């Protein structure tokens, strides 16, 4: 039922009957209702208008439900072909419009799309429920499942069948009516609390502002001051009363958003103001007001535990991890605690380094959380001094793209041809055709690299078309979206080294989406468990920092000079900077997440503060560091889909370090045999096999953490 979930989830639904007529009228010109005769089936962006989405969603959902009905009411006995394969085929229109729409919400949005997004959002679950809770459908799947031994299914078919059945079961299909009613009740409470958590947190984050006068800006750089003035100007624009406007006039505003807070904490010489801003950040949702999240978090954890128990699992974590690469809380705790001690030891060493600077400056205070960024920066300058400006000229976007193309060419023989005449949704989005070693078409890669006002921050990979071999060979269209600074004037775009790793990372996801070669689209590419899908992305980052490869593409954009060894060394050394802090705050949050989701249904949970305190005390977190997210603003686990999954990042990091170590051991970062294994067992397989099996087939053994400790400088070797 991967497909079900896939569609149900990819889909949003708008059930406005009144718009029916209008829908019919528009259908002739709505590009979603037509076959796309564009090159490679790239969506005809020039023809797609904002008003086309809603009718397409409506019609798509209607069609989807009709298709499901047809499967359920098929008079023939259920077979793999007439049930699971038909499910795979269902929802074409819905998928088509969803892919375009959700890509646009992230990379090229506008107020109209944002409004549509809000409007569509509650309808998603409604449509999704209609499919996931369809009893007739489950009965057919279950009948096939019971007969699976006699059916002579391929291993991919077996996995699809098992996954589909499991999703039904996980939605409660095996429960009796009373239990189902209870689950529905819990689900609705959970969804209310989840929404409340997010809304509270948003209010708390937007609610605090540090309004400063000119004389409060001591230490701040020009860029930071300009950004704070801009924030004030925007607030003034939005203010409704004159009085409110006056509050921001000629002032400088900092907020607890990271992009605003970090520069201030790093640069400001006003310790009192640093403390104020920092505390506003870590106290979010914990202010005993009407937007307090302490109770909300505790109630959510408790409800999830109850639900898990009803479904027959020990805790919510057990329920979640069943579908992950690490299968149980024990495995996750095992990994996290193994990393915890080295990380904490390193963090303590970093505190000592910084306290030394504090003392040397003649200050009397003991280093606190709000001093960290400032003193870390001082240590960085002294120990790891790396001049970003000296590196950038070697890293023009075109050179880096050549580097990443060349890397995949040496690994797998891929070639990239830019299609200059194909227009997509924005002139900065570039299009390449990707061909395999034998010249056959593999897919389309779209690279949309520069930041702009209507693009969400961060970087991600997504797709406009999936891969499937069910009804003929269908190849994917994949996109990478990043937020690199746009070039100034006619100069080429120059990247920081961090941008370069981001580019390689997202390109790794793109390769996962492009090399994929499976029969059933719902199991293609990046559809696997979250603690595995970062692996193909993160492992590619390692090639970006291999001196041999770096030298092949990092050439000065004016002189053509190759990046000097001295710079490379500094670059690699700098990657170990502040790792104690970063790993510690991250691991503390991951452990907190696990603690919250291994509570039992009958446990007595008071509020988040007491719980969190106990949890952090147990691991011995130091005062200078807060968990990366405290419970009351841990939106990933309480407002998003990361419950008991925050550990995923470090798990993938274990895999990528350990995986790349294989190439190091082979003595050749392009070792052909290993590269081939990586491709066939990881990049091509999607979720057609268990993730751990895929990894061990590539690596020859299970993953180990030593390589990661070394990469992050947590093995005691760095000082």
């Amino acid at each position, binding site marked *: 039922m991967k497909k079900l979930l896939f569609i149900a989830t990819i889909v949003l639904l708008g059930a406005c009957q009144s718009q029916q007529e209008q829908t019919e009228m528009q259908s002739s010109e709505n590009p979603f209702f037509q076959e796309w005769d564009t090159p490679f089936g790239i969506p005809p962006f020039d023809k797609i208008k904002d008003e086309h989405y809603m009718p397409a969603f409506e019609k798509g959902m209607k069609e989807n439900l009709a298709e499901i009905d047809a499967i359920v009411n098929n008079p023939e006995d259920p077979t793999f072909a007439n049930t699971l394969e038909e499910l795979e085929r269902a929802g074409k229109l819905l998928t088509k419009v969803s892919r375009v729409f959700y890509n646009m919400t992230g990379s090229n949005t506008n107020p109209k799309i944002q409004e549509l997004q809000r409007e569509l959002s509650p309808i998603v679950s409604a449509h999704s429920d209609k499919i996931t809770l369809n009893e007739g459908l489950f009965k057919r799947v279950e009948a096939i499942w019971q007969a699976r031994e006699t059916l002579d299914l391929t291993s991919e078919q077996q996995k699809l069948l098992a996954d589909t059945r499991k999703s039904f079961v996980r939605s409660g299909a095996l429960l009796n009516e009373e239990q189902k009613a209870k689950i529905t009740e819990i689900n609705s409470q959970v969804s209310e609390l989840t929404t409340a958590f997010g809304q509270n947190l948003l209010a708390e984050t937007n609610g605090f502002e540090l309004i400063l006068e000119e004389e409060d800006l001591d230490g701040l750089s020009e860029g930071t001051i300009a950004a704070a003035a801009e924030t004030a100007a925007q607030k003034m624009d939005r203010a409704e009363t004159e009085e409110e406007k006056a509050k921001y006039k000629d002032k400088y505003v900092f907020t607890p958003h990271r992009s605003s807070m970090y520069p201030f904490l790093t640069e400001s010489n006003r310790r009192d103001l640093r403390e104020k801003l920092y505390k506003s950040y870590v106290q979010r949702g914990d202010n005993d007001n009407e937007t307090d999240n302490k109770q909300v978090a505790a109630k959510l954890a408790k409800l999830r535990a109850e639900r898990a128990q009803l479904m027959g699992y020990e805790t919510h974590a057990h329920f979640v991890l069943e579908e992950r690469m690490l299968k149980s809380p024990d495995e996750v705790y095992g990994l996290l605690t193994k990393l915890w001690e080295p990380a904490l030891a390193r963090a303590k060493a970093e505190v000592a380094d910084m306290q030394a600077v504090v003392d040397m400056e003649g200050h009397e205070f003991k280093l606190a959380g709000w001093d960290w960024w400032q003193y870390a920066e001082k240590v960085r300058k002294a120990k790891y001094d790396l001049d970003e400006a000296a590196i950038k000229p070697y890293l023009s976007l075109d050179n880096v793209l050549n580097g990443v193309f060349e890397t995949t060419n040496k690994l797998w023989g891929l070639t990239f041809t830019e299609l200059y005449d194909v227009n997509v949704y924005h002139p900065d989005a570039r299009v390449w055709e990707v061909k395999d070693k034998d010249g056959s078409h593999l897919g389309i890669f779209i690279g949309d690299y520069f930041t702009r006002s209507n693009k969400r921050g961060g970087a*991600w990979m997504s797709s406009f078309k999936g891969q499937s071999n069910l009804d003929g060979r269908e190849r994917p269209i994949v996109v990478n979206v990043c937020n690199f600074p746009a070039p100034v004037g006619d100069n080429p775009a120059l990247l920081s080294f961090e941008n370069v790793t*981001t580019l390689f990372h997202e390109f790794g996801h793109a390769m996962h989406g492009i090399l994929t070669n499976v029969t059933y689209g719902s199991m293609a590419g990046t559809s696997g468990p979250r603690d595995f899908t970062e692996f193909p992305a993160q492992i590619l980052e390692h090639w970006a920092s291999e001196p041999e490869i770096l030298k092949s593409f990092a050439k000065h954009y004016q002189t053509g000079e190759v990046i000097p060894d001295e710079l490379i060394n500094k670059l690699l050394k700098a990657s170990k900077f502040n790792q104690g802090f970063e790993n510690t705050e991250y691991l503390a949050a991951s452990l907190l997440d696990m603690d919250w989701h291994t509570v039992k249904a009958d446990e007595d949970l008071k509020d988040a503060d007491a719980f969190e305190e106990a949890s952090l005390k147990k691991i011995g977190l130091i005062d200078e560091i807060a968990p990366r997210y405290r419970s009351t603003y841990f939106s990933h686990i309480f407002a998003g*889909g990361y419950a008991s999954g925050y550990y995923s990042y470090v798990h993938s990091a274990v895999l990528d370090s350990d995986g790349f170590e294989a190439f190091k051991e082979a003595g050749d970062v392009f070792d052909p045999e290993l590269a081939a294994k990586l491709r066939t067992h990881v990049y091509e397989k999607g979720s057609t096999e268990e993730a751990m099996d895929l990894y061990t087939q590539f690596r020859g053994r299970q993953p180990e953490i030593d390589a990661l400790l070394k990469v992050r400088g947590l093995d005691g070797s760095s000082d």
Partner: protein
Amino acid sequence: MSLPKTLLFCIFLVLGFSAFSHPEDELIISEIEQGQLSMQDQQMTAEYEAALKRQRMRRLAAMSWQQRFLLFIKAGIEHIIPKGLDHILFVLGLFFSSLIIGSLLWQVTSFTLAHTVTLALAALGIIQAPGNIVEPLIAFSIIYVAIENCFFKETNKWRPLIVFSFGLLHGLGFAAVLNEYGLPENGLVPTLLAFNIGVELGQLIVLFSAAALFWMIRKKSWYRQWVQIPASVMIALVGLFWFIERTIL
């Protein structure tokens, strides 16, 4: 790479494709983490224009020289018709100055020579002139030739020289638009040549159209009073409007 950044972008990655099940979360988490997008029309337009130019430059760099040559001839024509209204008016100003083909030829030739020189010098980066000086002066040149048409029945011998100096200004104007349009890094000279050819073609189209309309009646006794002078006055007025717009407004 640093962990926080990794985390930040992974959030979007994961929510971006596999957790379509939580589109509402995606919205709220990104708003919490990053604040609201501030989509200001003016800035978005500027960003879009810059992106369009980058796209043109990439396409240019990938073209064969023949394709590029043709493209720039087309661009040159377009920068007269329909985009170069002020240049059209100037050329018409020249047209209404004389009934003698020879004189007209002299003026057009000196205009062409002059703007070729400054266009090349400016495009090659040898000279630079700020738009806020050049643009009003171009408007002034239009007023000047149009007014002169009203006072003198035939052009004086200094006219080609004056037209030449105005041509220098117009060349700077062309260079500015060409720069906005984007010049390829290699093959600058053939590109310039192509653009210039395009500009000449545009100019000739204007002149021939005007000639086709007015040639038959140019010898009529009422031509000067009812065509030449009113047309010149109109041109001068438009020039004046631009002059004011480009200096004061």
